[in-house]
């Protein structure tokens, strides 16, 4: 269930470097507003994702993305009336070419950010994140590790309670059933006498919802009290074995390697060139008040090439890994 728990890598990069790199990518994705920059961004990210092997998740991502992007593309021209190039749909009702272009560019950026995150989830495993976390917040990362262990336990307990509930509902264990049901339903006798709930109870739709909620609640409640009782033993056992008596060590460890340094230098150089370009207005096509964009305006300048070089290292590493294996 957990993503990327096992990673075979010949070209391992320090997780902190990864996090920095992805953070810069996201910042760039929401600053840049140039069709050429965004399109090449999208293509390179798609290449990276296909190398990382994500195609099954792409479907789910599109499910999330498509309705939102359609809404943005439709609503933006209806509300936004800035822009010089007007398209009249009716006599007094117009939309502007600029507003449509803005909607499309925005949803493109949205798609890029979503793709960057799915790529990030492939590159950095949760153990690596916890490794960085545990340096500053040891107790919190301890809690996270523990709850990651408790989740499958609770899952199996819910399964057992569900089975028992199913057996009881089908009339097996009839004698015990009557006694236990009375006890379990104590919680709804307390509230049935208020006016507010009488009103709700009269509606049939609400009744079915409440019935459903009661079943879920029953299963959940039994599981919760069971888990809470059991975890007390965990706490006692931790105490007995001397938790806190000396400092905990991490089970993963990373050193900064030469690859990391080269990577960092590359990021630093290309990002500073890109930032210089952004200050001068490259990569930011101005949409309002008038979008004057021609396909022939190829951005053949150093800033664009720096941007492309900035996006390449991970693709290079992925390809090199493949070459080494085959």
């Amino acid at each position, binding site marked *: 269930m957990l993503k990327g728990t096992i990673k075979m890598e010949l070209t391992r990069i320090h997780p902190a470097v990864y996090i920095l790199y992805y953070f810069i990518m996201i*910042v760039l*994705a*929401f*600053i840049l507003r140039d069709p050429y920059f965004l399109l090449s961004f999208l293509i390179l990210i798609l290449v990276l994702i296909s190398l990382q092997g994500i195609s099954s998740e792409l479907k789910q991502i599109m499910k999330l993305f498509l309705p*939102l992007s359609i*809404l*943005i593309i439709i*609503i*933006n021209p209806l*509300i*936004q*009336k*800035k822009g010089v190039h007007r398209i009249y749909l009716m006599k007094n009702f117009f939309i502007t070419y600029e507003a449509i272009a803005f*909607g499309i560019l*925005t949803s493109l*950026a*949205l798609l890029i*950010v979503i793709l960057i*995150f*799915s790529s990030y*989830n492939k590159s950095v495993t*949760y153990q690596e994140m916890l490794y960085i976390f545990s340096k*500053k917040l040891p*107790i*919190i990362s*301890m*809690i*996270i590790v*523990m*709850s*990651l262990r*408790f*989740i499958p*336990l*609770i*899952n199996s307990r819910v399964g057992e309670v569900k089975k028992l509930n199913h057996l009881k509902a089908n009339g097996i264990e009839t004698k015990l059933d009557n006694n236990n049901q009375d006890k379990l339903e104590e*919680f*709804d006798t307390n*509230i049935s006498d208020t006016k*507010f709930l009488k009103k709700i109870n009269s509606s049939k739709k609400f009744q079915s919802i*409440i019935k459903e*909620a*009661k079943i*879920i*609640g029953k299963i*959940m409640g039994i*599981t*919760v*009290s069971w*888990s*809470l009782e059991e975890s*007390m033993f965990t*706490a006692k056992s*931790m105490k007995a074995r001397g*938790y*806190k008596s000396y400092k905990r060590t991490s089970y993963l460890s990373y050193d900064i390697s030469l690859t990391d340094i080269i990577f960092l230098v590359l990021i630093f150089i290309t990002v500073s060139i890109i930032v210089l370009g952004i200050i*001068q*207005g490259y990569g*930011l096509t101005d949409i*309002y008040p008038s979008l004057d964009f021609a396909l022939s305006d190829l951005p053949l300048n150093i800033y664009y090439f720096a941007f492309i070089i900035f996006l390449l290292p991970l693709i290079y590493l992925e390809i090199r890994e493949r070459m080494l294996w085959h």
Partner: protein
Amino acid sequence: MIIENFVNNLPITESGAVASSSLSIPILIFAFLLVVGIIYFIFKMYEQSKPTVESIVLIAVLTAIATAGRMIFISIPMVNLASFIIIMVGVVFGKEEGFLVGALTALVTSFFAGLGVWTIFQMLGWGLMGASAGYLSTKFDSIPFRFIFGLLWGFLYGWITDISALFYAGPTLEFSQIIALIISGFTYDLTHGVTNAVLLAILYNWFKKIFLRARDKYLPNQSSATATNE
């Protein structure tokens, strides 16, 4: 009209871009770092309070329960038990535990469901949900209050997580995108709110009993302190 005039009179820079748009990027980054900072500060506060082993295990279990509550019942569409558990934790254990369990639930869920900008805002949303339940814990005995609280937080949580969408909106913050988000999220927020409200109305007393028992067993100091306050 006023807005239109304002937009038309915005200073135009050399490259033609509206000057205010370049200002909003630092603002967004600042807002993001502020949220990260707040969450980090509260985590650090908990670390520095030197919690007992029982408290650590308790928070881990409650986080696991809330996370499981979000994932186990995935077959029933849009039923989100996590919020209910987080509110109950806030009410019974206090605002700090409520915030921690809320924020950590979002973080742990993101290990399964994928991490994104939204994770940090989910952490904030659920954290505030637990903390506010802790602040208002004395009022939870009335059913209408619980119902409204649950319903309201369904929407508030949706809106807080929608803030993350501003990061996709680019340098010019557009009103239309916020409206698109609110429309596309309305049914989800409504179901979330109604589920919360119904669960809080029906299961409150039972879960309170379960959690109170755990509190008395785990944290004898805290429960005696609150008992004297009450």
